[in-house]
């Protein structure tokens, strides 16, 4: 089965309208919660049953995260949605904003109710003008229908929702950099602890979730946590959007159950382009280690299976590379990205990403030295785990992953000052 959660209205005409959303039970859950004043614990326990794990990349269990919020603490608390979507290979949240914005709005309102927050912000990357407009229109519709605002449907519950637009900075996808950015500052991640649940936006308790995570909430509560869990597999509940790009015939977003074999996903994406053979796959966005194609052909698309195969599901961003791809060139582009986007706060990341980028680049350009491959591994190891946020790891992991599986290609570049692929 496909398209059961965030894409369940995909087949409808103008699926982004309030009318379309309501035609499949949209906002029923929200109304029921308001009406029955459902206990927060009940909602959280349903989410725990569902095994919904954060769709932003880290895969943290959402029910558990929500339970960390001091819902009864006095004063303002915030729900923040992360629609920064900057990890190369990821393009799913854009489609949720464009085609199913009401699911996100309902999910955020429920999150606010559950965690005692009456204000939410959706942080949308600044380049996303069309998605931003779709989302804003939906917020207006919801407000006009009395589903957002003060004393919603006479329940005494308030929830206001605002958009903040980014300015072009990958690092703002990191949740504490994102908070800094809403506070109108440079996006430099905060040191933790304190965690956002105690000291978040404007110094108040805050929970940050990814767009897809929040947009999945209404369906889960509509059909029950068990329903969601059983779409996927134990510890990997539900369906997930996979953004498939690269050398496939039909790149795009596919919502399939977690645990779907990669081979099936590849087939849905039209198979390999030009009848070429598959060489490597980056399974979860550019920060996750690439795996050889034949390994991937035996892997299922869920958090645990991909971890077992030596990589990460990340945000479900599947980048497919065929036999004509130069792995060194691919890595050079990825390493340049992390170098370009490091915020510069931590020395290992600021300096290390520059080293990685320069050294991979010189190997690619035929100026590699015999010691360079080990130098790359050494630098990666010295970045990993030594930075305030995950960008350092994100820069290091693809390097060690590519060398682990394709060392011979790097060696060939160093020895012959040219590419193995184009030489063949």
């Amino acid at each position: 089965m496909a398209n059961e959660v965030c894409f369940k209205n995909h087949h409808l005409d103008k699926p982004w309208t309030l009318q379309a959303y309501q035609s499949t039970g949209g906002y029923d859950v929200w109304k029921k919660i308001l009406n029955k004043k459902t206990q927060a614990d009940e909602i959280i326990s349903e989410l725990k049953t569902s095994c919904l794990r954060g769709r932003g990349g880290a895969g943290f269990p959402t029910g558990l995260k929500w339970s960390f919020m001091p819902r009864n603490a006095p004063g303002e608390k915030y729900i923040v949605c992360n629609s920064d979507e900057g990890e190369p290979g990821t393009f799913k949240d854009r489609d949720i904003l464009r085609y199913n914005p009401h699911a996100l709005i309902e999910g955020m309102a429920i999150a606010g109710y559950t965690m005692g927050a009456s204000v939410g912000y959706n942080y949308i990357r600044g380049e996303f003008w069309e998605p931003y407009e779709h989302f804003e229109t939906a917020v207006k519709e919801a407000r006009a229908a009395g589903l957002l605002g003060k004393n919603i449907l006479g329940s005494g519950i308030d929830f206001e929702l605002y958009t903040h637009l980014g300015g072009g900075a990958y690092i703002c996808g990191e949740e504490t950099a994102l908070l800094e950015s809403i506070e109108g500052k440079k996006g430099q991640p905060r040191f933790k602890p304190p965690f956002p649940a105690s000291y978040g936006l404007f110094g108040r308790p805050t929970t940050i979730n990814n767009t897809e995570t929040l947009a999945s909430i209404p369906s889960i509560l509509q059909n029950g946590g068990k329903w969601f869990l059983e779409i996927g597999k134990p510890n990997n509940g539900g369906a997930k959007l996979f953004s498939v790009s690269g050398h496939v015939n039909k790149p795009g977003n596919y919502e399939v159950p977690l645990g779907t074999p990669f081979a099936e996903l590849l087939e849905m994406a039209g198979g390999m382009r030009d009848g070429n053979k598959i060489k490597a796959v980056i399974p979860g966005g550019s920060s996750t280690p690439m795996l050889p194609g034949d390994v991937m052909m035996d892997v299922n698309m869920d958090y645990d299976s991909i971890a077992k195969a030596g990589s990460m599901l990340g945000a479900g961003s599947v980048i497919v590379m065929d036999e004509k791809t130069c792995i060194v060139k691919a890595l050079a582009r990825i390493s340049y990205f992390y170098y370009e986007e490091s915020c510069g706060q931590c020395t290992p990341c600021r300096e290390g990403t520059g080293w990685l980028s320069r050294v991979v680049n010189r190997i690619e350009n035929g100026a590699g030295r015999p010691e360079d491959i080990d130098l790359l591994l050494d630098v990666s190891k010295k970045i990993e785990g030594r930075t305030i946020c995950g960008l350092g790891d994100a820069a290091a992991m693809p390097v060690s992953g590519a060398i682990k599986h394709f060392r011979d290609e790097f060696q060939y570049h160093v020895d012959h000052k040219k590419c193995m692929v184009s030489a063949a």
Partner: protein
Amino acid sequence: MTLSSKDAQTLSATQSPAQSKKAKAANSKLDLLSQNVCAEIDQWLAKYPADWSISASMPALRIVQDSNGGYLTTDLMDAIAEYLDVPAISIYEVATFYSMYELKPVGRHKICVCTNISCMLCGSDEIVSHLKSKLGIGFGEMTGDGKFSLKEVECLAACGGAPMMQIGREYYENLTTEKVDEILNKLA
């Protein structure tokens, strides 16, 4: 905070510089912000807690940049700082940190081409060299007539439509060199 520059000048005439920071308004740059721009910034200010006017720095920079042909000047950034009642340095910091703010003139159409991994796998190199030779400019440059400028950008989350570019607020996906020609020809 939202003193009109006229009010501010009257104030500064009656107070010594040491008495109040309002005295700064003697050389106020607030006049650089049109009424429309201020009204638009106010809409964003309303989204944040009252003592967090700094939160509006990013929308303010974008609004002002758009109203100034696509780029910011130091004077404009100073005016924003004054309008939001925050130190100018915090506005400079934001303007220099984020990639969408431009600190020198750009073309009427700013062409942002993604060269990141999925776009590269699908032929962004060819799109880039086509654009460079067609326009006769490199990344970070502007055509002599001020019509186009070219910028290399990181993944814009449209990798399913790779290779892609953004011009103004529009995304253009599944590019070929012919499609690029068509798109550019249609732009005034």
